[in-house]
């Protein structure tokens, strides 16, 4: 998946996270995280963001994430939404169901 333009998803409401993805010139995922719980969970949040982007085949991006106490599943959902919006793709690839 290729990021073509900035993509934003999520809100600044409690339990949510607002994720902005921008195409980056150089390789690597660079995350600017703002969170009240950064000291305790910053690394975990960054890992969820990075893993989700890699699953989508994105290896280079600038990420701005403003966290308001989001669960991992919320972080994944917002990163995916922002990625599809930034890549202008609407052919969604859902994980195959577990047998």
């Amino acid at each position, binding site marked *: 998946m290729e990021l073509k333009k900035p993509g934003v998803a999520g809100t600044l*409401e409690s339990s949510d996270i607002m994720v902005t993805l921008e195409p980056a010139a150089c390789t690597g995922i660079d995350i600017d995280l703002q969170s009240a719980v950064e000291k305790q969970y910053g690394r975990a949040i960054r890992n969820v963001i990075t893993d989700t982007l890699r699953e989508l085949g994105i290896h280079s991006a600038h990420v701005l994430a403003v966290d308001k106490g989001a*669960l991992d599943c*919320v972080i994944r*959902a917002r990163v995916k939404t922002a990625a599809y919006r930034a890549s202008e793709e609407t052919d969604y690839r859902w994980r195959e*169901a577990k047998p």
Partner: protein
Amino acid sequence: MRQLRRTMLYVPGNNAGMIKDAGIYPADCIMFDLEDSVSAGEKDAARFLVYEALSTLDYPGKELVVRINDLSSRLGMDDLEAIVRTGKAVIRLPKTECAGDVLACEAQIARIEQENGIEVGSTGMMAAVESAAGVLNAKEIAVASPRLIGIALGAEDYVTDLRTNRSPEGIELLFARSMVLLAARAAGIDAIDTVYSEVNNEEGFRAEVRLIKQLGFDGKSVINPRQINPVHEIYTPTRKDIEKSLAIMEAIAEAARRGSGVAALNGKMIDKPVVERARYTLELAQAQGTLQKEEERIWQTLT
């Protein structure tokens, strides 16, 4: 044990906080909404959020339902592709107009199940009728698929279609409610009533719940957690109901031992319809956990 559907709590599909907290309320069912409560520009976000939540979070003891967008749009198809794969939720089809709508949805669900190694037929469905055509076709809709667990009335669109509005007494909904209920009973599925929008009017809400219970509905869609307990209170059989129902079941069991299908209790004849009502009361009480230990024991020996 009977699946309770007294309350179906609406949760807007793009609200992360409400999705996180939905499980802490005592509603029997949680309905994640991808349709009217989600703005056009956020449909993708809500779909990803509900998909990820269903794939990850547990809502113990709750029946989970997802209201998808109309299948005539690409949105509805994308919703189905995502939600059926989770294998966790009943699909609620909005604005059902005829049996063909149910069959079209069912065919897509079956395809997605097959493509993903999910047992074909394992995903349940609910149909919501929200128009004059839908109400008039309720009978054929309710029997259209064995996947259907219930049929629901969506009153806001329905009254708009009728060119009227909702009144406190709900006279404008009487025909639709009766149709939906009869269709559900003829098909052997549940009937779920529409929402009550005035969250601060508890008295009006309780009056409406008493009305739909008396009509025979299995439950009601609720839009605020505050509406859950009043519904449960009204739907809970009283001690007197439970004791009377147990006495009826004991009397008929005793009659059966004597080779008779009819019994008498306190001078009143007990026959099949009386027994069916008593059985329903006890099933409801058992599912709600309101049977006392001794009553539970007696009920088990009778079933």
